[in-house]
């Protein structure tokens, strides 16, 4: 592909990862891509599967295609890479790579003020491709947000999958921040006075929180006894 050559990248994957807007993706291990077992079922999902696969693995003779064709192939290759990516990042190797990216803050920070710049993790709303774009999960407030940059809003959520952030936290529970406290919630006030309706909601939420805390404490005590 002419684009790769002109930008001076030796491998397609290298070019792809360095393209602006692709900061969320990690590099998939060669062994993972080359093992056909890992790609089961993807040929039905991706047009020009074989050529796209060859393009990713740099085995394609690009000169034999005209501009129009290589554009189509490029799109297929990106799609294929994304779908393999979704599978790769929930493997042990993939999780290690994503944890590194997470710690570096490659996925951005939580826009919620009282989350104190908690690092985010990418998540899909559905595992079906071409439906919903990628969202970002904050493990402090346990909620999902739109990416800040419009470049990232066009990335397919299926390239990360619905399970990824939860899988990561399941594997690395130490990365989960301490639970939110009452003080980490915004309390709207007018001239220093709380607003009646909102204060009611907050009281109700506090009751929920306390009920959960006592449930968890009881469970813990039960576990210790046994």
């Amino acid at each position, binding site marked *: 592909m002419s684009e790769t050559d002109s930008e001076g990248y030796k491998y397609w994957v290298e070019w792809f990862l360095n393209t602006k807007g692709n900061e969320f993706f990690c590099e998939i291990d060669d062994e993972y891509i080359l093992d056909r077992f890992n790609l089961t079922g993807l040929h039905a999902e991706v047009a020009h599967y074989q050529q796209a696969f060859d393009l990713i693995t740099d085995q394609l003779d690009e000169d034999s295609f005209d501009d129009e064709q290589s554009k189509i192939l490029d799109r297929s290759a990106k799609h294929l890479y994304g779908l393999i990516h979704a599978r790769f990042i929930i493997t042990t190797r993939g999780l290690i790579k994503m944890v590194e990216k997470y710690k570096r803050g490659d996925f951005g920070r939580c*826009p*919620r*003020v*009282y989350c104190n710049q908690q690092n985010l993790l990418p998540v899909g*709303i559905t595992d079906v491709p071409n439906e919903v774009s990628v*969202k970002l*999960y904050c493990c*402090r*407030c*346990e*909620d*999902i*947000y*739109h990416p*800040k940059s419009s470049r990232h809003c066009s990335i397919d959520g299926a390239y990360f999958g*619905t*399970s990824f*952030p*939860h*899988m990561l*936290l*399941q594997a690395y*529970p130490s990365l*989960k921040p301490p*639970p*939110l406290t009452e003080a980490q*919630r*915004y309390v*709207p*006030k*007018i*001239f220093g006075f709380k*607003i009646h309706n*909102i204060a*009611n*909601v907050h009281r*109700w*939420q*506090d009751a*929920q*929180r306390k009920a*959960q805390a006592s*449930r*968890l404490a009881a*469970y813990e005590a039960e576990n210790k006894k046994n």
Partner: protein
Amino acid sequence: MSKDEPNWITRFCEASGHEYFCKVRKEFIEDENNLVGLSPIVNYYNEALDLILDIERDELKKEEKEIIQSSAILLYGLIHSRYINTTTGLREMASKYENGDFGTCPRFLCNNALVVPCGRRNRPERDVVKLFCPRCLDLYSPQNSFHEPIDGAFFGTNFAHVFFEAYPQYLNTRNINELYIPKVFGFRINEYSKNGSRAKWLRTFPG
């Protein structure tokens, strides 16, 4: 200044990054009662006030002009935080709100609910502006980095809530299903697990 040139307030409000500000009426600024207590906070108070009201002064040097320009921004911001709590100010902010000038909530499940600017401090130079979402009742940082350095005191702590008290029709009804449930391969995570939900209370609402 020539006649066709827009006045200082218009230029300030139309500058990029100043989309959150509304135009304060000249009559409001000219009324001394509305400016009580601002003179000790703002350096070059009189000069800054003249600049805002487009009263020309010739004897200024270049460096002075720059200082006065920044004082004028501070003064305008502080007047703005008072003005937007008045009836006319609220009306103007409501039209900006409907126009979507303040942006939308970054939370996915809020479904692009419109937000309003909100400060956390009423004193200037303490904190930057934040956005209040009436749907999840939470506070967010602006999505656009243009808006990040704006002082929160230019909107004040009260405005967002006075706004929704004055215009309750903008409080869209929440639906109870607006809760993100983390799942691994379609299975919910048990509450008792180490990775179980601990912040569900924050996003659940009575009723």
